[in-house]
């Protein structure tokens, strides 16, 4: 059958694309829109490397069909920095060495941003549980948690 024609907003920009029914939002982002910042680690929603927000809600883009997102708003890692200014989370991740290989980093950043938008002052436990769907095999999570706590503090101060 013919491909679906979909119009959506990605990182504030209107986009339109064609996709097969079985293509996921992740496939569309990476292969069609060439936004390869969202990573594919498992295709089953277990690693969080493909995290994006869909109408403000944190989701795994591998668990959303491309044809489902018509008229909806998507934010990916590519939309996080504003111009030349990194988001405070991005800056703190760098300062705290909260990444080693960096493959999980986009997912962690998108997920952390979604957390701080809902809860500007999370406890360490709240951060750890919120991020439990983002696997990192390099860092042992320690510096990631520190970076999120520090960014939250900086953002509260404005």
């Amino acid at each position, binding site marked *: 059958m013919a491909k679906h024609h979909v119009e959506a907003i990605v990182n504030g920009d209107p986009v339109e694309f064609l996709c097969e029914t079985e293509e996921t939002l992740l496939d569309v982002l990476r292969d069609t829109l060439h936004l390869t910042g969202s990573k594919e680690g498992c295709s*089953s929603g277990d690693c969080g490397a493909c995290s994006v927000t869909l109408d403000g809600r944190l989701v795994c883009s591998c668990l959303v069909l491309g044809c489902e997102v018509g008229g909806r708003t998507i934010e990916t890692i590519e939309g996080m920095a504003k111009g030349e200014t990194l988001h405070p989370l991005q800056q703190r991740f760098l300062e705290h060495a909260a990444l080693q290989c960096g493959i999980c980093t986009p997912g962690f950043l998108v997920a952390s941003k979604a957390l701080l938008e809902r809860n500007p002052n999370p406890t360490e436990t709240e951060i750890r549980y919120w991020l439990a769907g983002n696997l990192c*095999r390099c860092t042992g999570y320690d510096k990631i948690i520190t970076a999120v706590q520090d960014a939250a503090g900086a953002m509260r101060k404005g």
Partner: protein
Amino acid sequence: MAGNGTNGQQYVGTRTIRPDGADKVTGRARFGADYNLAGQLIGKVLRSPHPHARIVSIDTSKAEALPGVKAVITRDDFADMPSEFIPAGEMMMNYKDVTRNVMAREKALYEGHAVAAVAATSAVIAKKALKLIDVTYDVLPHVIDVVEAMQPGAPILHDDLFTVGVEPKPDRPSNVAKRVEISQGDIDAGFKRADVIVEREFKTAPVHQGYIEPHAVLATVSEDGSAEVWVSTQGHYIVRAHCARLLGMDIGKIRVNAAEIGGGFGGKTVVYLEPLALALSRKAKRPVKMVMSREEVFKASGPTSGAVVKVKMGATKDGKFVAGWAELKYQAGAFQGSPVQPGVMCAYAPYEIEHVKVVGYDVVSNRPKVAAYRAPGAPISEYAVESVVDEIAKKLGIDPIQLRMMNAAHEGTKAAYGPKFGPLGLEETLNSIKKTEHWNTPLRKWQGRGVASGFWFNIGGETCVSLTVNEDGTVSLMAGTPDIGGLRASLAAVAADELGIPYDKVRPIIGDTGSLGFNFLTGGSRSAFSGSMAIVEAAKQIKSELCARAAKLWEMKPDEIEYAGGHVKPKVASEKVTPMSLVDFAKVAGKTGGPIGGVGRINAQGAGPSLGTHLVDLEVDPETGRVTILRYTVAQDAGKALHPAYVEGQFQGGAVQGIGWALNEEYIYGADGKLQNAGFLDYRMPVASDVPKIDAIVVEVANPRHPYGVRGVGETPIVPPLGAIANAMENATGIRFTELPMSPPKVLKALKEKYGAGGAGR
């Protein structure tokens, strides 16, 4: 020693922002699967559903006829290789096995073994094509367990595998590829001197490296036979060497680019998809991209060995270890080559023991061929020994840190594997741990505290880096070892200090195989150690070239000139000449002889072992057997931390991988020989809420053979956790757990047996 930066150490030892950082936090960094070429095809692999089967025939005609399919390859597309060990890069490889692992030949030897591959114009067509390939299998009995594989009458994987290392030489094949042994002193005499002897058998499950990025490659072969590859690998020169050999190509014809790599831990030191993508591209005359699914990563790329280990240790009543014996049976997977040799050598390496004998067996079975995993082999044997050390401490009533301190290897100790050690940091790590507030905090019922130490050799090896002074005095740094955990930050700091220039004036990149001489891979905790040595060498060339040119400009002798503080200047200040900075010199480079640069080409020797001690608190739920890690502290000798934050990160990451290994990670097979948990849902790696903060103490006992005192740090952190957690479990429950993982069903069963339901009897 020399080096140490003409400008002092302004950046080395500080927490600089990694040069590749901005790209990594914005999604711009390109990992293996992020590369695409115009006209590329998608390659997919057909894998054996059987753990052990003779491949009677493969009919690819229907797949080839499917519109959109551009190439299909099978065993017929790879030349057979004789069974011999030949060098590939620095490694010794048996290409008979390598060619069979990338594509099954006579038999499929594990579920997931590649049997054919296709390249098509889309993933959907490629998938469809796989279903059209008819493979006729003659299914054979399989064997998964290492002990069963060693039994007479076990299904034999390889008819030509005769155990090496036993006398007399066997006259029939078996699954035991080799027997290895180290010994010194007289083990029987040692045990006669012992007042206390503890003997235990341990079992560990195979675990996967668990990198988050699946294997990915993009390859293109031109009509003239030259090829270019983009790949996520720990060693692009090694990929080049293997592919050249497997495909009968000249090494110089293949250019391999190291993509950003999403974790490796040893698992990306071998080839899986790369030769297939090249073979498909050669056949289709189009670029071919291949990416593994997570299920393929688990089923067809290397976990590390599961093992059965027996340990027997003897000590005098005042706590001196006098004898250490062990027998190690390591799974190799379907082809020989488990890390049993390093397992044998490391088992007793942290300690000074006069009488040692360790025997190891490398055993094949119908599992994916194991690959290196962080200090390959060492966590398993050292877990067993550290458990027994703890038991000896308890029997003797000696504090476990004190007992380790009394027996710790130090400078001058004759290692259990032979030679004498240089300076070592084990005692310092034990002392650091003992001084922590953590060690001195009280515990409650069902909580336990454990300590264990660990050893890894570290290596150096062939390394080539270049430093190029650009026209404006900025410096391009090119290294040839993939950067997995912040290497570029460390190397840029060393280059900046060596040349006395600002850190942000050095731009480090990872060069392709055509741009630098051979580099051994990123592994063995070698890349920062060897790379920084090579940079010192390259910087030395630049400094000496600058002095030589300045001598001509200033009509002085070269030895009257020095490079210091980022400037070329006369050793004795002179009014006639103005010192020149690197920027000044860059401007006149063309007029004084051309571009300025240096290339460090070394075979780095002198890697110093890194020792570490871990301390863990945990709590056991007596009603469910669930274990919670409450607190964790790592102390490890880094020699010198080039970038302390990334050194700490190695400690923390290794500790958490070890926590996973100890508590919940395992390969689970059904009676049908198939892997049942080939995904992140049921292969249970620790998530953020499973672990506490990991305190990291960086101990620095300088390695005298490195200009900055560096020791590799990447591997040792995964060695102590298994023992530390097992010891904490004993402390919490009074039960010595001898089987990993210590998953809740096992723990609850043991608790019930000892204390009745709910731990009521404790």
